[in-house]
């Protein structure tokens, strides 16, 4: 049995390479540099949920059935997030970063890999309370069209509000969180005014390039799915997309420590996972 399992493991690893190549060749999405453990778990999960005998069968189905491909894309795109996730991070933005942002006449912010948008609206609320929203332009991007559409809608299940409110209060929110939404049936709809300065757009970190000069880039819990090479490539893209002195914000368990571009960032707020592009090298 052990030997049989070993053959299956070897073959599955080959099938996964083929699977990722098929996605790239057919659809142009490149998951080949994602962490293998994560990718394998997600593909095997789809295999067992949809009842396929093997991964090769899934490749065929994916090539001929666009709807199945859409499901695969959702499997490989993790959209789990929350408003004011890691409240201490938002507190640090208020106390450390906002005073510096206030010195600029106009602020450009890029939420890279924004998923369903909860953290984008969190930032919009924070900027509004700090009197910065009116002179900010927020670009919220993701490769996942379905998630992006949900982000655009700004409608979330009502059962999540308790958690969002708790986070908001812990993050140093200055108002009442209920000021920012209307509850309807099972959902809450965020205020339209929060959206005025947000542009939602399709952008793929793996294959697309620089599209503007940003004062701050937020990319949290996105690069944890990338291998080291892809992380280095994307961090370089962020470096090139920032103004000198611009801020790069990562997730609470991410770090630039192992990145090639690390020396080009100031690590004053490393504990909060906020990095600053150096003014000169």
């Amino acid at each position, binding site marked *: 049995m052990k030997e049989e399992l070993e053959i299956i493991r070897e073959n599955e690893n080959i099938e996964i390479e083929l699977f990722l190549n098929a996605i790239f060749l057919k659809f142009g999405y490149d998951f080949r540099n994602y962490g293998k453990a994560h990718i394998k*778990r997600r593909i095997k999960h789809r295999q067992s949920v949809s009842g396929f005998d093997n991964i090769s069968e899934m490749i065929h189905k994916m090539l001929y059935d666009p709807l199945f491909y859409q499901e695969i894309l959702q499997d490989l795109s993790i959209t789990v997030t929350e408003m004011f996730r890691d409240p201490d991070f938002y507190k640090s933005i208020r106390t450390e970063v906002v005073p510096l942002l206030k010195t600029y006449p106009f602020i450009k912010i890029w939420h890279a890999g924004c998923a369903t948008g909860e953290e984008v609206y969190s930032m919009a609320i924070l900027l509004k309370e700090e009197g910065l929203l009116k002179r900010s332009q927020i670009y919220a991007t993701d490769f996942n069209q379905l998630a992006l559409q949900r982000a655009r809608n700004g409608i979330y299940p009502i059962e999540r509000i308790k958690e969002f409110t708790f986070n908001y209060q812990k993050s140093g929110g200055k108002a009442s969180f209920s000021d920012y939404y209307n509850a309807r049936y099972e959902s809450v709809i965020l205020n339209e005014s929060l959206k005025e300065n947000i542009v939602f757009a399709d952008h793929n970190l793996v294959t697309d390039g620089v599209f503007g000069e940003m004062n701050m880039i937020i990319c949290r819990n996105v690069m944890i799915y990338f291998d080291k090479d892809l992380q280095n490539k994307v961090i370089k893209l962020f470096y090139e997309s920032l103004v000198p002195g611009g801020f790069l914000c990562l997730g609470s368990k991410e770090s630039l420590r192992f990145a090639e571009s690390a020396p080009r960032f100031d690590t004053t707020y490393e504990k909060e996972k906020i990095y600053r592009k150096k003014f000169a090298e």
Partner: protein
Amino acid sequence: MQYKAIVIGVSAGGMNALGQIIPRLPADFPLPVIVVQHISPQSDNYMIRHFNNISKIRVKEADEKEKIKPGTVYFAPPNYHLMVENDFTFSLSVEERVNFSRPSIDVLFDTAVEAYWGSLIGIILTGANNDGSNGLKRIKECGGFTIVQNPDNSEVSAMPEAALKLVKVDKILDVDKIAGFLMKLVATDK
């Protein structure tokens, strides 16, 4: 050496159970020990600091992309799944909870088996749900060594019982015997 890593899954009652294991391991313990302890998403790293203070072996939170080294006990960070990559580094994920848990024991065990295959030792300790049973089964099937804490000796017996129901394990032990057993197992195994 036959064995290359130890994975431990533990839930309710973990503080005491791990307190019977980690401080007993020597600083030069020849394997890495990787632990998923179910823990509140908001918790700080109190447990890690505590065990690092009272133990000879190094205890730390697993960092993303970190190379896994012997003589170290790694804990999964709260609110993240911890995975082992085939190149023996860690990766993290915030995807959905598995068995109502993030970190999930099954996620660690499943990915650790992929990397370490038959050279893995899997341990299920005290806990109130059935996370880890499937992962332990997989470790056993792939030729690894499996240990479950004696349910009668567990603060909460549900998790050991669930594992025993699913897996014909190699060893059932009282928690204070586990560290000693592991040292013998890896010492005789050169």
